[in-house]
């Protein structure tokens, strides 16, 4: 204490001391920064930036302003009451003439087709039929080519989608649409797929997480209390699936679970069943394969937390008069909640993004959000919608994480 008093009294010394301490801390900090720099650069360049760029596509509306600059400029004057005036028709005609023979016409057509089915045909047909020069009356010319140009719906859509940014993809990803009057409405029930898709994805992920917890908790508890030799063996058995690729494991499940597969044959041989069970291309198959793949992610965090639970606490509870079930309920379970939270978060987050396994062992009605993101990225080439679906997935996971964090505490969600 006397040292502190002297330092405070002189006034000059503490400032010098503080400078010295700060300098030491700065050096320490820059050294850590230098050590982390490669990974930071790597993650930023190949992870953060691409994801951010791709997510931007969910609101990006590059095609229409780019390929229809004149129309976009003119259509702003029109108030979407009746048919647009002649200058708007003329601008559209000029834009489309400029696209004659260009592959971009198809790109534009595809983009407009997302909003109104049939728009692609209208655009390609018009581009093909338009004369090289803009005729005296653009309205008549376009109406001659296709009478649909006299339908205000197409013009209203054009006006709505003329901005640099669009909420079209985000709304579509939630089964919503913006009507020609600008009001947001639910899409027709026959076309609504995404909300039920989110529902199914969450249902499957929660189900898989719960099953993993129910199966994994006792295993982890046995591992944590076993002797070192037995624990090592068990740990290795748990880790074996990690050493095989996900694709190989899933394909193995296909072999095992099919109607003529090993599981059915054994069950029939043993007389447990008389007819083969359908274990594949349905929800059961998805659950079986996903639980198998994700089980280690549940067991390992649980195990590491359970290792830290002192057996003395259990003895203490027992000596204080608690029967085994009460000991479990009042001491062991509360002390292992961090492991439960960490394992469930990990399994859930991984399950939500699952793609290969449901695609291979699930039926058409078991596909999860990941399948559709891949579909819109690779097959339909609708990157805007793929990105919007991905964005919502991130939001949903973040929301669940936040709620979990609030309930059980963020420090407990860490995976050790």
């Amino acid at each position, binding site marked *: 204490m006397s040292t502190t008093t002297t330092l405070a009294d002189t006034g000059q010394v503490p400032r010098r001391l503080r400078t010295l301490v700060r300098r030491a801390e700065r050096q320490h900090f820059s050294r850590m920064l230098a050590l982390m720099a490669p990974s930071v650069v790597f993650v930023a360049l190949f992870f953060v930036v691409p994801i951010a760029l791709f997510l931007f596509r969910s609101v990006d509306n590059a095609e229409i302003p780019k390929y229809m600059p004149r129309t976009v400029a003119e259509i702003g004057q029109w108030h979407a009451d009746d048919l647009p005036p002649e200058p708007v028709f003329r601008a559209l005609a000029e834009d489309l003439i400029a696209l004659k023979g260009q592959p971009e016409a198809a790109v534009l057509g595809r983009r407009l087709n997302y909003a109104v089915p049939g728009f692609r045909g209208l655009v390609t047909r018009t581009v093909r039929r338009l004369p090289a020069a803009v005729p005296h009356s653009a309205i008549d010319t376009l109406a001659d080519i296709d009478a649909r140009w006299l339908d205000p719906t197409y013009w209203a859509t054009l006006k709505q989608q003329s901005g640099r940014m669009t909420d079209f993809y985000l709304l579509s990803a939630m089964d919503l649409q913006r009507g020609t009057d600008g009001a947001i409405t639910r899409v027709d029930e026959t076309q609504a797929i995404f909300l039920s898709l989110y529902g199914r994805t969450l249902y499957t992920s929660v189900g898989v997480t719960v099953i993993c917890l129910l199966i994994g908790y006792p295993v982890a508890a046995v591992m944590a209390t076993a002797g070192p030799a037995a624990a090592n063996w068990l740990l290795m058995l748990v880790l074996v699936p990690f050493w095989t690729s996900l694709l190989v494991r899933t394909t193995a499940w296909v072999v095992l679970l099919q109607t003529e597969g090993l599981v059915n044959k054994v069950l029939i041989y043993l007389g447990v069943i008389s007819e083969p069970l359908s274990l594949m291309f349905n929800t059961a198959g998805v659950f079986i394969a996903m639980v198998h793949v994700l089980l280690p992610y549940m067991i390992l965090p649980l195990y590491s937390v359970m290792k830290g639970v*002192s057996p*003395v606490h259990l*003895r203490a*509870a027992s000596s*204080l*008069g*608690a*029967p*085994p079930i*009460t000991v479990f309920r009042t001491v062991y379970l509360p002390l292992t909640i961090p492991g439960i939270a960490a394992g469930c978060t990990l399994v859930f987050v991984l399950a939500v993004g699952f793609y290969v396994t449901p695609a291979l062992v699930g039926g058409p009605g078991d596909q999860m959000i990941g399948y559709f993101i891949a579909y819109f990225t690779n097959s339909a080439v609708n990157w805007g919608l793929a990105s919007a679906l991905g964005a919502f997935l991130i939001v949903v996971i973040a929301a669940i994480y936040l709620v979990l964090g609030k309930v059980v505490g963020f420090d407990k969600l860490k995976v050790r």
Partner: protein
Amino acid sequence: MNAIASISGKDRTDDPIVRFSGVRKSYDGETLVVRDLNLDIVRGEFLTLLGPSGSGKTTSLMMLAGFEAPTEGTISIGGKDVTALPPYRRGIGVVFQNYALFPHMTIGQNVGYPLRVRGAAQADIDKRVVEALEMVELGAFADRRPAQLSGGQQQRAALARALVFRPELVLLDEPLGALDKQLREQMQYELKRLHEELKVTMVYVTHDQTEALTMSDRIAVFNDGGIQQLARPSDLYENPQNAFVAEFVGENNRLTGIVTGGSENGVYVDVGGGVSVHARPVGSFAPGDRTVLSLRPERIAVGKDGQWENDFTIEIDKVVYLGDVNRLLLRFAGGSEFAVRVANQGGGPVFQRGDSVRVAWRQSDCLAFPAE
């Protein structure tokens, strides 16, 4: 307290609270951790199981608590065989070395735990928790978490938790081992006070002989899986039954030699270099037997004219200054070394290495045990 006053060093008493009968314990099926334990614990006494690590004292306590099952033999509490009874049905309070407070509960919830699992009414729980916490002077800490308390406070809370359901028997497994010296002494005093106030039977495990001597009504000295001696502290110190007890309890000089003659009242022991020591035999000896002598440092008089049986003038090998005493290390010509404690009274003679001093001790203070 009268019951305790009549406790002798005998293994068996009438109406014991705990009786170990022929208890043996082996973990690997080859070596016995506890070999043939027969022990009666008297109602209301403070019994200490004292011994080095691996002597079987903790295993014995754990078997009494029900955490370990005896390989052979029976344990009964209050006349009822509890050998197969699980811990939670024994109704014993246990205090552990590292407190074992539940980290996810407050101190109040911890102390209320034994009442809660017994299904007591909430109002009753609250009242008794307050009482128990006040008893250990932690009244203001009910809402804290264990991690927010110091080691001493945590141990007091653990004590309150083990006492709150008013068990007849409380087991303490080296409860003060993790505390520093000053706190340990304070807690010893507090434990003694609680023992006298509550009149519970306490069984205390420790390897610290000072702790055992200051707190216990009786001490059972464990070594090698068995009780070497069970006696009141003063008996244990004054009349150890074997060389191990003599050495483990209190400071002791150990000298080895060969019996040259004497009777059952006194033997002459050659400790080497032609030096003959007159000692009190524990057991019977014949000339030529090897023996281990036990001599307490404080029983050796320095620089006095005594009419004591043993009287030598020896050169000082080393002087260790301990503040309250000087510790002189002396060596017989034959090589046997022993220590003497000389109170530092100020103004007394100054001892230096190489000085010759006259040391003397009574024959009755020097015990001769058979060498193992």
